[in-house]
């Protein structure tokens, strides 16, 4: 008995040391466990986290074209999963990669913690002309540049052509028409018209901005002050509108990107999907639009509140940032500037609708502009919908506590779906909640 216990203790100790040994090379800061294979030896290596579905190809392209630096890539999860790991690495002071893929709306969150490097000094002028002004604005805080734009998320209304034809509705141009069309389809016994999901608060934020809301105003010259305006009339109207649609049973309330939702999309339970230009690539990856469903989807411009003054908005879109934990920031910046910026990678990205590129070489490429998108049955989606939307997009100031704001929004949307609050009440609660958090974090709330 005694002997066994000692053995067990020894085993535990051994396991313990094993754990310690593991933790020292956890995350991407160590270049020994890359997902890709680095063929060139004795060349400095830069570590990178990202989740584009074609990252493998992008990294291989970069490594092939460079002899002075090689990229070691790890996929640590998509969106929130990656941010949680990055956030933990920031708090720990170690474990972060040199270069990281982040969505533009998260940049202020990490920048305010001093986790990102201003890459303006590392060859910004050489690539400045490759991107539009709006693209740079989304990755900048004040004059400092904290990321290299890769893709944007101009929004449109993806819809099922077969359902629209069957119930004789045409793509709605305004949100009022959207509701009428939804009612018409419902009265005729058709499927749900769309989806009001709690787990995509960023979409609702974009739709509120479309109505004229400015959730946050932030002046980098006065980093201690922030304007929080989440319960103005525009914000309330949008939440009331969607809450109303859900209450009338015109749209579903399913969380998006879940197996349940994707099954619904495949089964044709939703006539429309309000989403961004990168959506077809992700839907295709999840098995939508294949087999029987091939070519049933089409896309139309996002419905408007005031068709005389259309406003275009954005959802998602990412950039490559250099982290403060990078040992050679200049080399890391070179990677950030060069990744996904070569023609081959970009072309692969946009032909598969994984990205809506922001690189002007791709945007101006006639092949991109005129592309007949297979997912939309040959519709020239870029020319008709996404390019005009991207060109009209004006950029947004994001919150330096984006994660908290989006979590709080998700919570309130859940309450609307449960029917315990109205959209307006939810907006008021959200304002109270986020303003309180901002004050707790030491901001002066205006």
């Amino acid at each position, binding site marked *: 008995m005694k002997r066994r216990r000692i053995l067990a203790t020894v085993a535990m100790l051994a396991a313990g040391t094993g754990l310690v040994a593991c933790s020292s090379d956890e995350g991407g800061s160590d270049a020994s466990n890359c997902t890709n294979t680095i063929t060139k030896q004795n060349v400095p290596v830069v570590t990178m986290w990202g989740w584009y579905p074609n990252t493998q190809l992008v990294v291989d392209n970069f490594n092939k074209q460079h002899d002075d630096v090689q990229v070691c890539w790890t996929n640590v999860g998509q969106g929130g999963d990656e941010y*949680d790991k990055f956030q933990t690495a920031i*708090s720990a002071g170690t474990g972060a990669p040199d270069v990281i893929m982040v969505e533009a709306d998260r940049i202020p969150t990490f920048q305010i913690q001093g986790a990102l490097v201003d890459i303006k000094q590392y060859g910004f002028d050489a690539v400045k002309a490759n991107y539009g002004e709006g693209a740079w604005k989304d990755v900048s805080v004040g004059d400092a540049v904290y990321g290299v734009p890769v893709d944007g998320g101009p929004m449109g209304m993806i819809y099922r052509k077969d359902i629209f034809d069957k119930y004789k509705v045409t793509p709605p141009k305004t949100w009022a028409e959207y509701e009428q069309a939804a009612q018409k389809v419902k009265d005729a016994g058709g499927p749900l018209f769309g989806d009001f*999901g709690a787990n995509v608060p960023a979409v609702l934020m974009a739709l509120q901005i479309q109505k004229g809301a400015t959730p946050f105003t932030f002046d980098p010259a006065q980093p201690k002050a922030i304007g929080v305006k989440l319960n103005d009339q525009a914000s309330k109207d949008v939440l009331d509108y969607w809450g109303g649609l859900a209450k009338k049973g015109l749209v579903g309330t399913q*969380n998006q990107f879940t*197996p349940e939702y994707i*099954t619904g999309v495949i089964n044709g339970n939703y006539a429309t999907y309000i989403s961004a230009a990168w959506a077809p690539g992700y839907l295709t990856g999840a098995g939508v639009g294949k087999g029987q469903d091939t070519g049933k989807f089409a896309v139309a411009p996002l419905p408007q509140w005031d068709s005389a003054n259309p406003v275009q908005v954005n959802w998602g879109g990412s950039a490559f940032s250099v982290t403060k934990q990078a040992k050679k920031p200049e080399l890391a910046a070179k990677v950030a500037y060069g990744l996904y910026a070569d023609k081959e990678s970009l072309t692969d990205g946009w032909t598969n609708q994984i990205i809506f590129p922001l690189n002007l070489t791709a945007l101006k490429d006639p092949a991109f502009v005129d592309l007949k998108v297979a997912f939309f049955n040959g519709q020239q989606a870029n020319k008709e919908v996404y390019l005009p939307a991207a060109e009209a997009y004006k950029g947004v100031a994001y919150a330096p506590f984006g994660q908290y704001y989006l979590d709080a929004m998700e919570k309130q949307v*859940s309450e609307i779906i449960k029917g315990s609050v109205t959209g307006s009440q939810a907006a008021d609660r959200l304002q109270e909640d986020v303003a309180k958090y901002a004050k707790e974090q030491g901001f002066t709330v205006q």
Partner: protein
Amino acid sequence: MGWLFVGPFGIVFLAFLIAPLAYALYLSLFQKKLIGGTSFVLFDNYVKAFTDPSFLSGVWFVIRFSLVSIPVQILIALALALILDAVTTAFARFSRLMIFLPYAIPTVIGAVMWGFLYSRGFGPLTDIFGLFGATAPDFLSSDLIFYGLLNVVTWQWAGYYMIILYAALQGVDPTLYEAARMDGAGRWQIATRIKIPLIAPALILILVFSLIGTLQFFNEPQILRYLAAGTIGSDFTPNMYAYQQAFSLANFNYGSAISFALGGVVFICVYAFLFFTRKRRSFL
């Protein structure tokens, strides 16, 4: 010489239990702001936790859940253990294994599996209820999620508790049954008057286990929240809330405070329970 034997355990105990606990306690006494940095705030985080509606509603949920789920699990486990103890066929042995089996399935896989079974889009419930022309209940909706989780937890744990009780029953001296039968006791009376009182210590043991486990409820709701449309928030249970604070919002200080506050709640509940059952217990 004695220290040498205690040493290896002592090192592991200090390094992997006491040190992390002490560090978490230390963290919970500070506050880190985006503007203004870190400052020592003593018990402010705890004051905030016990006035935070998210934390309080989470605690209230796990307490309510404990009050329902623990009696259900234990009654099922007890009934099964008594039946399996009384019946000694090969089928009983097979049943014992099958009832225990869910415990051997990792909680994550169990939760995912139930999430799919509950699904209205591709789960079997829709079809089964459809046969009778009824609509299937949505166990992932906010009205029924309580019962959905109750079912998952009972499925997973009742078998494990059954095994503990069954093992305790095996330790009862069979001559007692004989004596009882001589005195004219039936099967039912043997079960209620002899068996249950004699395995009371084991019953209390599993009650304490389940109480601690349920108050720290995390895995099942954390997994089902990806399948349940906004029904389960990030502050559904105190542990989930602590996780969100620490790893999603980088608020390790408040996350630690919530964990310790929850630890306090668990301690109070377990202590109260042991106090009221102090005559019966023999193991603690």
